[in-house]
């Protein structure tokens, strides 16, 4: 199903403020059987991050190596293309995390 461009536009207004924030891995898993739009990225880690302000968030870890998959590992939020879109979809960029 094509995601509404309006929905993406509404969400993206807040994205730029979330770039470059640091946090630590609180928990991780390695997704090997993903949803359809993430198929070409598998396997990839999904992490729960404790941000410096104490808030918890969930995100995908990119540019990773196996040694990065440890609790307490420092990560930083970056802007990345989210997923593989369907033909008529708007290309969507969102926050992901990379190891520091």
């Amino acid at each position: 199903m094509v995601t509404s461009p309006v929905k993406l536009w509404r969400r993206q207004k807040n994205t730029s403020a979330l770039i470059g924030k640091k946090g630590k891995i609180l928990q991780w898993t390695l997704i090997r059987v993903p949803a359809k739009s993430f198929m070409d990225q598998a396997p990839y880690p999904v992490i729960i991050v404790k941000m410096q302000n104490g808030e918890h968030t969930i995100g995908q870890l990119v540019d990773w190596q196996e040694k990065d998959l440890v609790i307490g590992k420092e990560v930083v939020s970056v802007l990345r293309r989210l997923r593989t879109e369907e033909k008529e979809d708007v290309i969507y960029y969102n926050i992901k995390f990379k190891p520091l």
Partner: protein
Amino acid sequence: MKMQILGAYSTKFGELWNVSPRTLAKEAMENALKASGLKATQIDALFVGNMLSGILGNQANLGSLLVEELGVQIPAFKIEGACASGGLALHNAINSLKAGQYKTVLVLGIEKMTDHSQDEITTALMAAGSDEERMAGATFPGVYALMAQAYMQKYKATEEDLAAVSVKNHYHGTLNSKAQFQFLVTVGDVMRSSKIADPLKLLDCSPISDGAAAVVITSGNVAKKVKKPIHIIASEVGTDTLSLHDRKSFTSLAAVIDASTKAYKKAGIKPSDIDVAEIHDCFSISEAIATEDLGFSKKGEGARDIAKGKRTLFKGDIICNPSGGLKSCGHPVGATGIKQIVEITEQLRGTAQKRQVKRARIGLTHNVGGSGAIAVIHILRS
């Protein structure tokens, strides 16, 4: 107000490619009615538990559609609460009886999943998660895997301890002719199965299934004719945040603790009074955590107690998932909550045949939606 189950029936669960949702629903409804000794004309309303008919089948208005199959024009409702849709439909049906609006109603749980590919199902099921989880590329096995990691670290539990849940439930499934998988698996089989989301492997996960189950419940006096009516003595719901990461604990489900605490209080019993329980073991970790949240095991001991045989037929104290659970009996998501009620009804009536729990008098069902965003607990008594 007395609330009784008059008739209960579950279809076979599995890959039922030759059966349509209509046919599946009809089989469950007709046989539940037959078991109750009532006719469709004696039913006041139909409650349907279902999650995915809109997303996968492009079919909304499920209440009206299925009432057609019943052959009567009565009020009908579809109730959705992700994988807890079945339990939630029953809870709403019970409330309608308590309100005095209806006296005798039919509650159906149904899901048709195997017509669709694995990635379509994985995507569709994530509709029960949050936007943040979907944007992170998380899947349901992934979210439960995060809980499993946290649980294993906190309580020094092993992947083998979790595998014991699947081994037990597959053993129980061999005793259930309605189960999707009627074969044994070993701890080694689970450990060697392909990884889905670390540390969860294929044999830690419940399957994609088709199936339907139905019960007839009443608050009236029609129950006289039924030999062994089963009483519903508690029906409670709890909720929590949609996202796992927003919760205080990743190793316990607050919705389950809330709903079960209320249910035990309503029923006037304690966890140790339960003889048999149907647990929402969508993943091995789920049953380990559930047995702790429900008060059957001490915190951190749930998985090890299962590995020791404390939840196994013919040797445990509180028997969990005699049907084979979601893992072995199958998990057609909307049907599961009602199938659990059907299983406990059979156990309390003493008609569970090869998998009969001896002297079962009080039973519990534990039905969970999402990663614990909703939980429905029912307690039944013979």
